[in-house]
């Protein structure tokens, strides 16, 4: 579905991605794990065109998407939840969600309403806090809001960047489980970037291990989870 080949992205003279090849399988969760600075976030940012690749290809549904703008990539059904619970603190919960659907408002108003309602059913706590400013939410609620903001665009691929960052284990569990359910029930394809390898591998179908901008392993998640030597070498436990 999403095929990435020999992707190179540079920040100045530093190669953050140095020839990455991987794919996100349709209807499955693919997780990209690796230490800090491995290039995980850069990978997602390059897919959604926030960064421009130096070389390599990104193919989505058999078409190259390199060179498109972020605004157009979300219209193709790729939604990105960037790192750090990216919501707009000065806007209300309601406004943050409807922001994600603005571009389809004219073409499909009734579905936008339906999708918005689904988000409140998915995360009832957001429904209770509709009118509150996003800045007043807890970290977990903000992450739920960031995910809702992305999902309300009805993507077929969700790029999720470190949803566990700074959250209590119980909240992480809940969020990861919700994403897992969405994938199994609606056929959503997920590319999940995580530093918390254990949690990610427990729900993922495939694991991709990134180190210093290159893929060092691409295995079924269960197999990667069991590979003690690999984990010791790259994740430090």
């Amino acid at each position, binding site marked *: 579905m999403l095929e990435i080949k020999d992707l190179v992205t540079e920040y100045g003279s530093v190669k953050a991605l140095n020839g990455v090849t991987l794919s996100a399988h349709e209807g499955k969760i693919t997780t990209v794990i690796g230490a800090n600075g491995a290039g995980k976030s850069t990978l997602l940012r390059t897919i*959604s065109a*926030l960064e421009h690749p130096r070389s390599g290809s990104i193919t989505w549904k058999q078409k190259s998407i390199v060179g498109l*703008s*972020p*605004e157009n990539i*979300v*219209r193709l059904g790729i*939604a*990105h939840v*960037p790192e750090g619970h*990216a*919501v*707009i603190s*000065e*806007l209300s919960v309601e*406004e943050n969600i*409807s*922001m*994600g659907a*603005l*571009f*389809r*408002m004219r073409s499909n108003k009734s579905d936008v309403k339906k999708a918005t309602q689904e988000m409140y059913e998915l995360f009832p706590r957001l429904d209770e806090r509709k009118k509150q400013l996003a800045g007043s939410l807890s970290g977990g609620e903000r992450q739920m809001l960031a995910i809702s*903001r*992305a999902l309300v*665009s009805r993507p077929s691929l969700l790029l999720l960047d470190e949803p566990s960052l700074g959250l209590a284990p119980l909240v992480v569990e809940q969020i990861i489980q919700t994403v897992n359910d969405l994938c199994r029930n609606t056929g959503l394809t997920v590319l999940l970037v995580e530093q918390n390898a254990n949690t990610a591998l427990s729900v993922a179908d495939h694991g991709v291990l990134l180190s210093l901008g290159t893929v060092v392993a691409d295995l079924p998640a269960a197999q990667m989870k069991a590979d003690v030597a690999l984990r010791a070498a790259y994740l430090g436990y």
Partner: protein
Amino acid sequence: MDIFLSAIFSGTSRGAIYALAALGLVLVWRGAGVVNFAQMGQAMFSTYIASTLIAHNYSYWIAFIVALISGGALGALVDLAVMRPLGRKRSSSFLDSPAMRSTVPVIASLGILGVLQAAAGIIWAAEERGFPTPVNSLGLVIGGKSMPFTAFDLFVMGIVFLTLAATTYFFKGTGMGLAMRASALNPEVARLSGIRIGFVRTLSWTISGVASSLAGLLVTPSANLSPNTLDLILIIGFTAAVVGGLDSLLGSVIGGFALGLLISFVNVYDAPEDIFLAILIVLLTVLIIRPQGILGSKGVRRV
């Protein structure tokens, strides 16, 4: 008492105009991160267009509408022809540094101001000309009693309050308004949500152009029209925006009215020569005590 009341009324009507000018500045600052020194130059240009139409016997209202439209168009043009190309690739790493990235557009806006003033001088000659009001600007007389305000004061206040109400509705009640707020607050998340921030930015320039040309049309009757007349309004509007908080629309409006009243009171109870001293004192006091302005958010760049 009459003097006091008339100071209040003329201050409010003046303040309404400054509020518009400040609003125009804040719109572009929030929407595009540029302090637009060309703003009142654009307004001067569209006021000249109105003045020319009136001289050719078109009605005030047609001239008024055409001026607002050309003000908006000029705003869009500044963005499309100058700011957007500037925002693209820069030639050297020096020009590409963050400090220069935010400075270059401001310098460019000063350049645009110069070009507009020179062009107006060439097209319309530099001599001053008067500009009419649509309603009487002499003291209003109701039931044989003269009022402390003029019909034009009421007209100005009415039209500015209408504009402010429309702007508030636009920002709070429409999808495009939400898109504009989102792009100003967090361009990255806005883009990831599918908001076309380039379009939104041009729209900020356009709305700002309309607001400032409205300010120009309303302020010119009392000041005559020349290529430089509106420079003063830029200074006052800028002060109003800083006092109110450069990133707050409501703050800029409050700042505008506050300055209007201040100027009016200094004018009546002190002397017109002291107006700029008073403005300077207010500006310095705000910058020292509350650098982010009355309603500005903390952490915003200090002026």
